[in-house]
């Protein structure tokens, strides 16, 4: 009987949100914890291999992971009926959970914006997808790196808000 009442769609969307989120944050942490600190140690003649082959593939899963995480997350919040409460950060609702998940949602949205509108356009210049002068490429590399580091910093409170909303408050 309980099995029949099991909410398949909510479970599917929640699972999609989690899997996409791991895909996104996993790549974000790969860039910041592994690739960026290792690049200066890689011999100059080998670096193009990273930029031409590994980076575009990693960025593909990274940006679409971000997109699906946001999409599934918004649908999940709507299906569970707390989308508006979370956007309002639970102010006036008297519920810790809405504030926690709301902060997580806002931080996640800022991070998603960084991915699609700051990191990707600048990485496209670095990878040569869009044309740019050497000075513009250097500036783009720095901007993309800083935005990526900001996302790494924000990922920590974002994950706290997401996970603890369901398990602590």
């Amino acid at each position, binding site marked *: 009987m309980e099995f029949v009442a099991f909410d398949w769609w909510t479970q599917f969307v929640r699972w999609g949100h989690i899997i996409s989120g791991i895909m996104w944050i996993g790549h974000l942490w790969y860039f910041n914890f592994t690739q960026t600190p290792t690049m200066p140690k890689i011999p100059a003649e080998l670096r193009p291999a990273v930029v031409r082959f590994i980076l575009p593939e990693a960025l593909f899963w990274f940006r679409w992971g971000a997109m699906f995480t946001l999409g599934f997350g918004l649908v999940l919040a709507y299906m569970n009926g707390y989308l508006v409460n979370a956007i309002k950060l639970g102010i006036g609702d008297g519920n810790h959970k809405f504030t926690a998940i709301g902060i997580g949602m806002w931080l996640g949205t800022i991070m998603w914006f960084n991915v699609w509108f700051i990191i990707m356009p600048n990485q496209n210049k670095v990878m040569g997808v869009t044309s740019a002068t050497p000075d513009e490429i250097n500036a783009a590399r720095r901007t993309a790196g800083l935005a990526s580091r900001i996302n790494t910093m924000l990922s*920590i*409170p974002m994950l706290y808000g997401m996970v603890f909303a369901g398990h602590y408050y």
Partner: protein
Amino acid sequence: MPVIADDHRQTRICGAKLSERMLRFAARGRERDKKESGMDSLLNNLWATIIAGFVLTVIEILVIHAIH
């Protein structure tokens, strides 16, 4: 016009010390421009970024409890 030229020359000749000082001043300005901002240096250090993330988490917890 000759007056301006003379003034300029005088500054360059008589102000040898002044010029050095000016050069040092200009160099200091350039060095300052090259220096990273606080945000840059924070984000260029991976461990500082992680610590900042945990500090933000503590602030987040305080905000959650402050709202309720």
